[in-house]
Protein backbone atom coordinates (compact mmCIF):
# COMPACT_ATOMS: atom_id res chain seq x y z
CA UNK A 1 0.00 0.00 0.00
CA UNK A 2 2.86 2.30 0.88
CA UNK A 3 4.62 1.68 -2.44
CA UNK A 4 1.36 2.03 -4.35
CA UNK A 5 0.62 5.28 -2.60
CA UNK A 6 3.95 6.67 -3.71
CA UNK A 7 3.05 5.83 -7.30
CA UNK A 8 -0.32 7.64 -7.12
CA UNK A 9 1.37 11.00 -7.62
CA UNK A 10 3.13 9.64 -10.69
CA UNK A 11 -0.17 8.21 -11.92
CA UNK A 12 -1.87 11.62 -11.76
CA UNK A 13 1.07 13.27 -13.49
CA UNK A 14 1.01 10.64 -16.26
CA UNK A 15 -2.72 11.09 -16.80
CA UNK A 16 -2.37 14.86 -16.89
CA UNK A 17 0.89 15.38 -18.77
CA UNK A 18 1.84 12.21 -20.66
CA UNK A 19 2.56 12.89 -24.31
CA UNK A 20 4.50 10.06 -25.92
CA UNK A 21 5.37 12.16 -28.99
CA UNK A 22 6.84 15.10 -27.07
CA UNK A 23 10.56 15.63 -26.49
CA UNK A 24 10.12 18.16 -23.71
CA UNK A 25 11.98 18.10 -20.42
CA UNK A 26 8.76 17.27 -18.58
CA UNK A 27 8.02 14.25 -20.76
CA UNK A 28 11.55 12.88 -20.42
CA UNK A 29 11.47 13.42 -16.64
CA UNK A 30 8.04 11.81 -16.48
CA UNK A 31 9.33 8.76 -18.34
CA UNK A 32 12.16 8.36 -15.83
CA UNK A 33 9.66 8.81 -13.00
CA UNK A 34 7.32 6.16 -14.40
CA UNK A 35 10.20 3.71 -14.58
CA UNK A 36 10.94 4.03 -10.90
CA UNK A 37 7.30 4.09 -9.84
CA UNK A 38 6.44 1.05 -11.90
CA UNK A 39 9.31 -0.97 -10.44
CA UNK A 40 8.20 -0.10 -6.90
CA UNK A 41 4.58 -0.91 -7.68
CA UNK A 42 5.62 -4.24 -9.18
CA UNK A 43 7.42 -5.20 -5.97
CA UNK A 44 4.54 -3.96 -3.83
CA UNK A 45 1.96 -5.96 -5.74
CA UNK A 46 4.12 -9.08 -5.68
CA UNK A 47 4.36 -8.81 -1.90
CA UNK A 48 0.60 -8.28 -1.75
CA UNK A 49 0.07 -11.46 -3.78
CA UNK A 50 2.39 -13.54 -1.63
CA UNK A 51 0.69 -12.28 1.51
CA UNK A 52 -2.41 -14.36 0.70
CA UNK A 53 -0.42 -17.39 1.78
CA UNK A 54 0.62 -15.61 4.98
CA UNK A 55 -2.99 -14.71 5.68
CA UNK A 56 -4.13 -18.31 5.35
CA UNK A 57 -1.28 -19.60 7.49
CA UNK A 58 -1.98 -16.94 10.10
CA UNK A 59 -5.69 -17.81 10.15
CA UNK A 60 -4.78 -21.44 10.65
CA UNK A 61 -2.63 -20.40 13.56
CA UNK A 62 -5.45 -18.29 15.10
CA UNK A 63 -7.79 -21.26 14.90
CA UNK A 64 -5.97 -22.88 17.80
CA UNK A 65 -7.02 -20.12 20.17
CA UNK A 66 -10.48 -19.34 18.81
CA UNK A 67 -13.24 -21.27 20.52
CA UNK A 68 -14.95 -23.64 18.07
CA UNK A 69 -12.55 -23.06 15.21
CA UNK A 70 -10.71 -26.21 14.18
CA UNK A 71 -8.97 -24.71 11.17
CA UNK A 72 -8.68 -21.55 9.10
CA UNK A 73 -12.35 -21.82 8.10
CA UNK A 74 -13.42 -21.20 11.64
CA UNK A 75 -10.83 -18.46 12.04
CA UNK A 76 -12.19 -16.61 9.02
CA UNK A 77 -15.74 -17.00 10.28
CA UNK A 78 -14.85 -15.61 13.71
CA UNK A 79 -16.09 -12.17 12.70
CA UNK A 80 -17.90 -10.64 9.69
CA UNK A 81 -14.67 -9.40 8.11
CA UNK A 82 -12.77 -12.65 7.73
CA UNK A 83 -14.38 -14.12 4.63
CA UNK A 84 -14.54 -10.77 2.77
CA UNK A 85 -10.87 -10.19 3.61
CA UNK A 86 -10.01 -13.60 2.24
CA UNK A 87 -12.08 -13.23 -0.93
CA UNK A 88 -10.72 -9.77 -1.66
CA UNK A 89 -7.20 -11.12 -1.20
CA UNK A 90 -7.88 -14.10 -3.51
CA UNK A 91 -9.35 -12.01 -6.30
CA UNK A 92 -6.62 -9.46 -5.72
CA UNK A 93 -4.15 -12.07 -6.92
CA UNK A 94 -5.64 -11.79 -10.39
CA UNK A 95 -5.99 -8.01 -10.43
CA UNK A 96 -2.47 -7.42 -9.11
CA UNK A 97 -1.00 -10.09 -11.36
CA UNK A 98 -2.65 -8.59 -14.40
CA UNK A 99 -1.06 -5.21 -13.65
CA UNK A 100 2.33 -6.91 -13.51
CA UNK A 101 1.67 -8.61 -16.86
CA UNK A 102 0.70 -5.28 -18.45
CA UNK A 103 3.81 -3.65 -16.99
CA UNK A 104 6.16 -6.40 -18.24
CA UNK A 105 4.62 -6.22 -21.72
CA UNK A 106 4.94 -2.44 -21.74
CA UNK A 107 8.66 -2.79 -21.13
CA UNK A 108 9.02 -4.95 -24.22
CA UNK A 109 8.03 -2.17 -26.58
CA UNK A 110 10.29 0.79 -27.31
CA UNK A 111 7.25 3.06 -27.47
CA UNK A 112 5.87 1.87 -24.10
CA UNK A 113 2.28 2.21 -25.32
CA UNK A 114 0.74 0.78 -22.16
CA UNK A 115 2.18 3.34 -19.74
CA UNK A 116 -0.89 5.52 -19.57
CA UNK A 117 -3.21 2.52 -19.31
CA UNK A 118 -1.24 0.87 -16.52
CA UNK A 119 -1.29 4.04 -14.42
CA UNK A 120 -5.03 4.46 -14.99
CA UNK A 121 -5.35 0.83 -13.91
CA UNK A 122 -3.19 1.52 -10.88
CA UNK A 123 -5.55 4.30 -9.81
CA UNK A 124 -8.39 1.78 -9.97
CA UNK A 125 -6.33 -0.73 -8.01
CA UNK A 126 -5.45 1.66 -5.20
CA UNK A 127 -9.00 1.68 -3.71
CA UNK A 128 -9.01 -2.10 -4.02
CA UNK A 129 -5.71 -2.31 -2.16
CA UNK A 130 -7.05 0.09 0.46
CA UNK A 131 -10.16 -2.06 0.87
CA UNK A 132 -7.94 -5.14 1.07
CA UNK A 133 -5.84 -3.59 3.82
CA UNK A 134 -8.85 -2.15 5.66
CA UNK A 135 -10.67 -5.48 5.69
CA UNK A 136 -7.56 -7.20 6.96
CA UNK A 137 -7.14 -4.67 9.76
CA UNK A 138 -10.83 -4.93 10.67
CA UNK A 139 -10.62 -8.70 10.68
CA UNK A 140 -7.51 -8.84 12.84
CA UNK A 141 -8.74 -6.06 15.10
CA UNK A 142 -12.11 -7.74 15.66
CA UNK A 143 -10.85 -11.19 16.57
CA UNK A 144 -12.09 -12.22 20.00
CA UNK A 145 -10.90 -15.58 21.27
CA UNK A 146 -13.86 -16.08 23.60
CA UNK A 147 -16.58 -15.79 20.94
CA UNK A 148 -17.60 -19.17 19.55
CA UNK A 149 -17.13 -19.66 15.85
CA UNK A 150 -18.06 -22.46 13.47
CA UNK A 151 -15.76 -25.11 12.11
CA UNK A 152 -15.68 -26.51 8.61
CA UNK A 153 -17.62 -29.54 9.64
CA UNK A 154 -20.63 -27.30 10.18
CA UNK A 155 -19.99 -24.93 7.29
CA UNK A 156 -19.26 -27.34 4.47
CA UNK A 157 -21.55 -30.22 5.21
CA UNK A 158 -23.00 -32.87 2.84
CA UNK A 159 -24.04 -32.26 -0.72
CA UNK A 160 -27.61 -33.02 0.33
CA UNK A 161 -28.62 -32.61 3.92
CA UNK A 162 -28.09 -30.34 6.91
CA UNK A 163 -25.65 -27.49 7.30
CA UNK A 164 -24.58 -25.00 4.67
CA UNK A 165 -25.00 -26.89 1.46
CA UNK A 166 -22.62 -25.82 -1.30
CA UNK A 167 -24.29 -27.38 -4.29
CA UNK A 168 -27.83 -28.25 -3.18
CA UNK A 169 -29.22 -31.63 -4.14
CA UNK A 170 -26.77 -32.27 -6.98
CA UNK A 171 -25.19 -35.71 -6.56
CA UNK A 172 -21.42 -35.75 -6.41
CA UNK A 173 -21.10 -38.06 -9.41
CA UNK A 174 -23.12 -35.80 -11.70
CA UNK A 175 -21.20 -32.81 -10.47
CA UNK A 176 -17.85 -34.44 -11.20
CA UNK A 177 -18.91 -35.64 -14.66
CA UNK A 178 -20.01 -32.12 -15.50
CA UNK A 179 -16.81 -30.73 -14.03
CA UNK A 180 -14.47 -32.99 -15.98
CA UNK A 181 -16.50 -32.35 -19.13
CA UNK A 182 -16.11 -28.62 -18.64
CA UNK A 183 -12.39 -29.02 -18.00
CA UNK A 184 -12.04 -31.07 -21.17
CA UNK A 185 -13.83 -28.45 -23.26
CA UNK A 186 -11.67 -25.74 -21.77
CA UNK A 187 -8.57 -27.78 -22.57
CA UNK A 188 -9.51 -28.04 -26.24
CA UNK A 189 -10.60 -24.41 -26.39
CA UNK A 190 -7.18 -23.45 -25.04
CA UNK A 191 -5.41 -25.49 -27.68
CA UNK A 192 -7.53 -23.80 -30.34
CA UNK A 193 -6.65 -20.39 -28.91
CA UNK A 194 -2.99 -21.36 -29.18
CA UNK A 195 -3.41 -21.97 -32.89
CA UNK A 196 -5.12 -18.63 -33.43
CA UNK A 197 -2.45 -16.50 -31.82
CA UNK A 198 -0.96 -13.99 -34.20
CA UNK A 199 -4.09 -13.48 -36.27
CA UNK A 200 -5.42 -9.97 -36.75
CA UNK A 201 -7.62 -8.90 -33.89
CA UNK A 202 -11.19 -8.45 -35.13
CA UNK A 203 -14.27 -7.65 -33.08
CA UNK A 204 -15.28 -11.32 -33.00
CA UNK A 205 -11.76 -12.31 -31.92
CA UNK A 206 -11.93 -9.83 -29.04
CA UNK A 207 -15.27 -11.26 -27.97
CA UNK A 208 -13.90 -14.77 -28.28
CA UNK A 209 -10.90 -13.89 -26.12
CA UNK A 210 -13.11 -12.39 -23.44
CA UNK A 211 -15.26 -15.53 -23.42
CA UNK A 212 -12.08 -17.56 -23.14
CA UNK A 213 -11.01 -15.55 -20.10
CA UNK A 214 -14.49 -15.92 -18.60
CA UNK A 215 -14.34 -19.68 -19.11
CA UNK A 216 -11.12 -19.80 -17.10
CA UNK A 217 -12.75 -17.76 -14.34
CA UNK A 218 -15.65 -20.20 -14.24
CA UNK A 219 -13.19 -23.09 -14.16
CA UNK A 220 -11.40 -21.48 -11.20
CA UNK A 221 -14.58 -20.99 -9.18
CA UNK A 222 -15.93 -24.39 -10.15
CA UNK A 223 -12.66 -26.02 -9.11
CA UNK A 224 -12.73 -24.34 -5.69
CA UNK A 225 -16.22 -25.71 -5.23
CA UNK A 226 -15.26 -29.21 -6.35
CA UNK A 227 -12.14 -29.32 -4.17
CA UNK A 228 -14.11 -28.22 -1.13
CA UNK A 229 -17.35 -30.13 -1.67
CA UNK A 230 -16.08 -33.39 -3.14
CA UNK A 231 -12.32 -33.92 -3.35
CA UNK A 232 -11.43 -32.83 0.16
CA UNK A 233 -13.45 -35.66 1.69
CA UNK A 234 -11.30 -38.16 -0.17
CA UNK A 235 -8.13 -36.41 0.96
CA UNK A 236 -9.29 -36.52 4.59
CA UNK A 237 -10.76 -40.03 4.09
CA UNK A 238 -13.77 -38.79 6.04
CA UNK A 239 -17.10 -38.26 4.25
CA UNK A 240 -18.26 -35.55 6.67
CA UNK A 241 -15.00 -33.61 6.60
CA UNK A 242 -15.08 -30.97 3.90
CA UNK A 243 -12.68 -28.10 4.24
CA UNK A 244 -10.63 -26.07 1.77
CA UNK A 245 -7.94 -25.26 4.33
CA UNK A 246 -7.06 -28.47 6.17
CA UNK A 247 -5.55 -29.86 2.97
CA UNK A 248 -2.73 -27.39 3.58
CA UNK A 249 -1.79 -29.12 6.81
CA UNK A 250 1.21 -31.39 7.09
CA UNK A 251 -0.92 -34.28 8.33
CA UNK A 252 -2.48 -34.36 4.88
CA UNK A 253 0.95 -34.03 3.24
CA UNK A 254 0.25 -30.35 2.56
CA UNK A 255 -1.29 -31.45 -0.72
CA UNK A 256 -3.32 -28.25 -0.66
CA UNK A 257 -0.28 -26.23 -1.68
CA UNK A 258 0.26 -27.91 -5.04
CA UNK A 259 -3.51 -28.08 -5.59
CA UNK A 260 -4.03 -24.36 -5.08
CA UNK A 261 -0.78 -23.40 -6.75
CA UNK A 262 -1.61 -25.36 -9.92
CA UNK A 263 -5.18 -24.08 -9.92
CA UNK A 264 -4.33 -20.41 -9.40
CA UNK A 265 -1.48 -20.54 -11.92
CA UNK A 266 -3.66 -22.23 -14.54
CA UNK A 267 -6.55 -19.83 -14.03
CA UNK A 268 -4.37 -16.74 -13.98
CA UNK A 269 -2.44 -17.69 -17.11
CA UNK A 270 -5.62 -18.65 -18.96
CA UNK A 271 -7.54 -15.53 -17.97
CA UNK A 272 -4.70 -13.14 -18.64
CA UNK A 273 -4.05 -14.70 -22.05
CA UNK A 274 -7.64 -13.91 -22.99
CA UNK A 275 -7.85 -10.45 -21.49
CA UNK A 276 -4.52 -9.22 -22.89
CA UNK A 277 -5.23 -10.21 -26.51
CA UNK A 278 -6.62 -6.85 -27.74
CA UNK A 279 -3.41 -5.11 -26.63
CA UNK A 280 -1.64 -6.69 -29.63
CA UNK A 281 -3.13 -3.96 -31.82
CA UNK A 282 -1.01 -1.27 -30.13
CA UNK A 283 2.32 -0.15 -31.65
CA UNK A 284 5.14 -2.56 -30.93
CA UNK A 285 2.92 -4.96 -28.99
CA UNK A 286 2.03 -7.63 -31.54
CA UNK A 287 5.17 -9.68 -30.92
CA UNK A 288 5.32 -9.37 -27.13
CA UNK A 289 1.59 -10.09 -26.69
CA UNK A 290 1.72 -13.10 -28.99
CA UNK A 291 4.76 -14.39 -27.11
CA UNK A 292 3.10 -13.91 -23.74
CA UNK A 293 -0.19 -15.52 -24.81
CA UNK A 294 1.60 -18.51 -26.26
CA UNK A 295 3.58 -19.04 -23.06
CA UNK A 296 0.61 -18.32 -20.80
CA UNK A 297 -1.79 -20.68 -22.55
CA UNK A 298 0.79 -23.49 -22.63
CA UNK A 299 1.49 -22.96 -18.94
CA UNK A 300 -2.21 -22.89 -18.14
CA UNK A 301 -2.65 -26.24 -19.87
CA UNK A 302 0.27 -27.83 -18.02
CA UNK A 303 -0.97 -26.46 -14.70
CA UNK A 304 -4.52 -27.57 -15.42
CA UNK A 305 -3.41 -31.10 -16.19
CA UNK A 306 -1.27 -31.24 -13.04
CA UNK A 307 -4.14 -29.87 -10.97
CA UNK A 308 -6.60 -32.41 -12.36
CA UNK A 309 -4.13 -35.25 -11.82
CA UNK A 310 -3.55 -34.29 -8.21
CA UNK A 311 -7.19 -33.85 -7.31
CA UNK A 312 -8.21 -36.99 -9.18
CA UNK A 313 -5.62 -39.12 -7.42
CA UNK A 314 -7.52 -39.37 -4.15
CA UNK A 315 -10.94 -40.46 -5.43
CA UNK A 316 -9.15 -42.74 -7.95
CA UNK A 317 -7.24 -44.46 -5.13
CA UNK A 318 -10.46 -44.79 -3.15
CA UNK A 319 -12.32 -46.26 -6.10
CA UNK A 320 -9.48 -48.63 -6.95
CA UNK A 321 -8.61 -49.79 -3.48
CA UNK A 322 -11.75 -48.98 -1.49
CA UNK A 323 -9.96 -46.77 1.03
CA UNK A 324 -6.96 -44.66 1.90
CA UNK A 325 -3.70 -45.43 0.13
Amino acid sequence: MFLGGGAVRTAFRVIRYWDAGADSTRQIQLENETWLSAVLVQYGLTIQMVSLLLLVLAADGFSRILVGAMCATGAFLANPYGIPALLVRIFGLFFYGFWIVVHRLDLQSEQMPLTRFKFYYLLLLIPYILADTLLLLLYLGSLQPDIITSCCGVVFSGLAGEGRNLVGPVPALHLMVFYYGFAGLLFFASRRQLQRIGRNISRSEVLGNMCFALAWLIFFLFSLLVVTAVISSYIYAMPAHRCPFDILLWEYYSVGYPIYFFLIAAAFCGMSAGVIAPVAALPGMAGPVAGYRRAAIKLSLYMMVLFLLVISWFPAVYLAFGGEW
Partner: protein
Amino acid sequence: MLITLESVDKIYNSGAINEVAALREIDLTVAEGEMVCLQGPSGSGKTTLLSVIGCIFSPTSGRATIGGRRISRLPDHFLTRYRRELIGFIFQNYNMLGHLSVLENITLPLLPLGISPGRREKMADALLDKLAIGHRKHFIADQLSGGELQRAAIARALINNPPIIVADEPTAHLDGKLALEIIDLLAEQKADGRTLILSSHDPAVSGHPRVDRVVALRDGRISSQVSAG
Protein backbone atom coordinates in the same frame (compact mmCIF):
# COMPACT_ATOMS: atom_id res chain seq x y z
CA MET B 1 20.55 10.75 -42.19
CA LEU B 2 22.10 8.25 -39.84
CA ILE B 3 22.39 10.50 -36.77
CA THR B 4 20.17 13.48 -36.05
CA LEU B 5 19.93 15.77 -33.06
CA GLU B 6 17.10 18.29 -32.89
CA SER B 7 16.97 21.02 -30.23
CA VAL B 8 18.93 18.86 -27.80
CA ASP B 9 19.59 20.28 -24.36
CA LYS B 10 21.55 18.63 -21.60
CA ILE B 11 21.41 20.18 -18.15
CA TYR B 12 23.20 18.68 -15.18
CA ASN B 13 21.72 19.17 -11.69
CA SER B 14 18.65 20.91 -13.08
CA GLY B 15 17.16 23.32 -10.57
CA ALA B 16 20.02 22.98 -8.11
CA ILE B 17 22.54 25.64 -7.19
CA ASN B 18 25.19 23.86 -9.24
CA GLU B 19 23.09 23.60 -12.37
CA VAL B 20 25.15 23.37 -15.56
CA ALA B 21 23.71 23.69 -19.07
CA ALA B 22 26.23 21.57 -20.94
CA LEU B 23 24.32 21.58 -24.25
CA ARG B 24 21.83 24.11 -25.54
CA GLU B 25 19.61 23.81 -28.59
CA ILE B 26 21.96 21.49 -30.48
CA ASP B 27 20.86 20.76 -34.03
CA LEU B 28 23.23 18.39 -35.78
CA THR B 29 23.00 15.77 -38.50
CA VAL B 30 25.72 13.27 -39.38
CA ALA B 31 25.40 11.30 -42.57
CA GLU B 32 26.28 7.64 -42.83
CA GLY B 33 29.99 7.21 -43.50
CA GLU B 34 30.82 10.77 -42.54
CA MET B 35 33.76 11.71 -40.30
CA VAL B 36 32.94 14.70 -38.12
CA CYS B 37 35.32 16.42 -35.74
CA LEU B 38 34.02 18.41 -32.76
CA GLN B 39 36.21 21.29 -31.72
CA GLY B 40 35.97 23.70 -28.85
CA PRO B 41 37.57 24.84 -25.62
CA SER B 42 37.38 22.85 -22.44
CA GLY B 43 33.82 22.93 -21.05
CA SER B 44 32.21 23.69 -24.40
CA GLY B 45 30.15 20.47 -24.29
CA LYS B 46 32.09 18.18 -26.61
CA THR B 47 32.18 15.19 -24.25
CA THR B 48 28.53 15.66 -23.33
CA LEU B 49 27.53 15.80 -26.98
CA LEU B 50 29.52 12.66 -27.72
CA SER B 51 27.91 10.95 -24.71
CA VAL B 52 24.44 11.80 -25.99
CA ILE B 53 25.29 10.45 -29.44
CA GLY B 54 26.95 7.45 -27.84
CA CYS B 55 23.75 6.61 -25.88
CA ILE B 56 25.52 7.08 -22.56
CA PHE B 57 23.37 10.04 -21.50
CA SER B 58 19.84 10.94 -22.42
CA PRO B 59 19.24 14.59 -23.26
CA THR B 60 17.20 16.75 -20.90
CA SER B 61 15.01 17.76 -23.81
CA GLY B 62 15.04 17.48 -27.57
CA ARG B 63 15.30 14.55 -29.91
CA ALA B 64 18.24 12.35 -30.82
CA THR B 65 17.83 9.62 -33.42
CA ILE B 66 20.11 7.02 -34.93
CA GLY B 67 18.86 5.31 -38.07
CA GLY B 68 15.39 6.72 -37.42
CA ARG B 69 15.21 5.22 -33.94
CA ARG B 70 14.64 7.77 -31.18
CA ILE B 71 17.50 6.92 -28.84
CA SER B 72 16.83 9.91 -26.60
CA ARG B 73 13.70 8.27 -25.27
CA LEU B 74 14.40 4.58 -25.23
CA PRO B 75 13.91 2.54 -22.07
CA ASP B 76 17.21 1.66 -20.48
CA HIS B 77 17.34 -2.00 -21.53
CA PHE B 78 16.75 -1.09 -25.18
CA LEU B 79 19.36 1.66 -24.96
CA THR B 80 21.89 -0.79 -23.57
CA ARG B 81 21.27 -3.16 -26.45
CA TYR B 82 21.52 -0.50 -29.13
CA ARG B 83 24.60 1.01 -27.55
CA ARG B 84 26.20 -2.42 -27.71
CA GLU B 85 25.13 -2.99 -31.31
CA LEU B 86 25.61 0.47 -32.81
CA ILE B 87 28.35 2.32 -30.93
CA GLY B 88 32.05 1.81 -30.42
CA PHE B 89 33.18 4.37 -27.85
CA ILE B 90 36.79 5.42 -27.38
CA PHE B 91 37.21 7.33 -24.15
CA GLN B 92 39.60 10.15 -23.45
CA ASN B 93 41.28 8.31 -20.61
CA TYR B 94 41.02 4.90 -22.32
CA ASN B 95 38.93 3.44 -19.44
CA MET B 96 40.70 0.14 -19.69
CA LEU B 97 40.45 -2.14 -16.65
CA GLY B 98 44.02 -2.00 -15.41
CA HIS B 99 44.08 -5.39 -13.72
CA LEU B 100 42.84 -7.25 -16.80
CA SER B 101 44.92 -8.23 -19.80
CA VAL B 102 44.61 -6.53 -23.16
CA LEU B 103 42.73 -9.55 -24.51
CA GLU B 104 40.27 -9.53 -21.60
CA ASN B 105 39.68 -5.80 -21.95
CA ILE B 106 39.06 -6.03 -25.67
CA THR B 107 36.67 -8.98 -25.43
CA LEU B 108 34.60 -7.53 -22.56
CA PRO B 109 31.89 -6.18 -24.91
CA LEU B 110 31.41 -9.70 -26.26
CA LEU B 111 30.57 -11.25 -22.88
CA PRO B 112 26.83 -10.36 -22.85
CA LEU B 113 26.46 -11.93 -26.30
CA GLY B 114 27.21 -15.46 -25.09
CA ILE B 115 30.07 -15.96 -27.54
CA SER B 116 32.42 -18.79 -26.63
CA PRO B 117 35.86 -17.88 -25.22
CA GLY B 118 37.61 -19.45 -28.22
CA ARG B 119 35.65 -17.42 -30.72
CA ARG B 120 36.07 -14.25 -28.65
CA GLU B 121 39.83 -14.71 -28.72
CA LYS B 122 39.80 -15.27 -32.50
CA MET B 123 37.81 -12.08 -33.03
CA ALA B 124 40.22 -10.16 -30.78
CA ASP B 125 43.28 -11.63 -32.53
CA ALA B 126 42.11 -10.33 -35.90
CA LEU B 127 41.82 -6.80 -34.52
CA LEU B 128 45.00 -6.93 -32.48
CA ASP B 129 46.98 -7.91 -35.57
CA LYS B 130 45.37 -5.17 -37.62
CA LEU B 131 46.23 -2.61 -34.95
CA ALA B 132 49.75 -3.99 -34.48
CA ILE B 133 49.49 -4.83 -30.77
CA GLY B 134 49.10 -8.58 -31.06
CA HIS B 135 52.39 -9.01 -29.20
CA ARG B 136 50.82 -7.32 -26.11
CA LYS B 137 47.80 -9.55 -26.01
CA HIS B 138 48.47 -11.10 -22.62
CA PHE B 139 49.99 -8.01 -21.01
CA ILE B 140 48.09 -6.41 -18.17
CA ALA B 141 46.63 -3.09 -19.36
CA ASP B 142 48.61 -1.13 -16.74
CA GLN B 143 51.81 -2.29 -18.41
CA LEU B 144 51.06 -0.67 -21.78
CA SER B 145 52.30 2.62 -23.15
CA GLY B 146 49.87 5.42 -24.09
CA GLY B 147 49.89 4.59 -27.77
CA GLU B 148 49.38 0.88 -27.09
CA LEU B 149 46.53 1.65 -24.71
CA GLN B 150 44.84 3.78 -27.31
CA ARG B 151 45.19 1.01 -29.91
CA ALA B 152 43.73 -1.44 -27.43
CA ALA B 153 40.86 1.00 -26.77
CA ILE B 154 40.22 1.22 -30.50
CA ALA B 155 40.21 -2.57 -30.72
CA ARG B 156 37.67 -2.75 -27.88
CA ALA B 157 35.51 -0.19 -29.66
CA LEU B 158 35.61 -2.20 -32.89
CA ILE B 159 35.18 -5.72 -31.51
CA ASN B 160 31.39 -5.68 -31.95
CA ASN B 161 31.72 -4.32 -35.50
CA PRO B 162 29.64 -1.22 -34.76
CA PRO B 163 28.56 1.11 -37.57
CA ILE B 164 29.36 4.21 -35.49
CA ILE B 165 32.61 5.10 -33.72
CA VAL B 166 32.59 7.85 -31.11
CA ALA B 167 36.02 9.00 -29.96
CA ASP B 168 36.55 11.53 -27.19
CA GLU B 169 39.94 13.22 -27.55
CA PRO B 170 41.57 10.04 -28.91
CA THR B 171 45.00 11.69 -29.20
CA ALA B 172 44.95 13.76 -25.99
CA HIS B 173 47.78 11.91 -24.24
CA LEU B 174 49.90 11.15 -27.28
CA ASP B 175 52.79 12.89 -29.00
CA GLY B 176 52.55 14.17 -32.58
CA LYS B 177 53.70 11.06 -34.43
CA LEU B 178 51.58 8.68 -32.37
CA ALA B 179 48.60 10.98 -32.60
CA LEU B 180 48.79 10.92 -36.39
CA GLU B 181 49.05 7.14 -36.38
CA ILE B 182 45.92 6.87 -34.24
CA ILE B 183 43.98 9.28 -36.41
CA ASP B 184 45.06 7.37 -39.52
CA LEU B 185 43.80 4.19 -37.87
CA LEU B 186 40.47 5.80 -37.10
CA ALA B 187 40.22 7.23 -40.58
CA GLU B 188 40.64 3.71 -41.97
CA GLN B 189 37.35 2.85 -40.26
CA LYS B 190 35.66 5.39 -42.48
CA ALA B 191 36.93 3.44 -45.47
CA ASP B 192 35.19 0.40 -43.95
CA GLY B 193 31.89 2.29 -44.13
CA ARG B 194 31.72 3.41 -40.52
CA THR B 195 30.56 6.79 -39.30
CA LEU B 196 33.01 8.59 -37.04
CA ILE B 197 32.39 11.40 -34.61
CA LEU B 198 35.37 12.52 -32.63
CA SER B 199 36.41 15.48 -30.55
CA SER B 200 39.83 17.06 -30.44
CA HIS B 201 41.75 20.22 -29.59
CA ASP B 202 44.48 19.15 -31.98
CA PRO B 203 44.49 20.99 -35.32
CA ALA B 204 46.26 18.00 -36.84
CA VAL B 205 43.14 15.97 -36.12
CA SER B 206 40.57 18.48 -37.32
CA GLY B 207 42.72 19.19 -40.34
CA HIS B 208 43.10 15.50 -41.31
CA PRO B 209 42.19 14.99 -44.98
CA ARG B 210 39.62 12.30 -44.14
CA VAL B 211 37.62 14.62 -41.86
CA ASP B 212 34.48 15.71 -43.72
CA ARG B 213 33.28 18.41 -41.38
CA VAL B 214 34.48 20.35 -38.36
CA VAL B 215 31.80 21.41 -35.86
CA ALA B 216 32.82 24.12 -33.41
CA LEU B 217 31.21 24.24 -29.98
CA ARG B 218 31.20 27.12 -27.55
CA ASP B 219 29.28 27.30 -24.24
CA GLY B 220 27.21 24.28 -25.17
CA ARG B 221 26.09 25.64 -28.54
CA ILE B 222 27.27 24.98 -32.08
CA SER B 223 29.01 28.15 -33.18
CA SER B 224 30.00 26.98 -36.66
CA GLN B 225 30.09 24.00 -39.00
CA VAL B 226 32.73 23.94 -41.73
CA SER B 227 32.88 21.29 -44.40
CA ALA B 228 36.38 20.24 -45.34
CA GLY B 229 37.67 20.28 -48.86
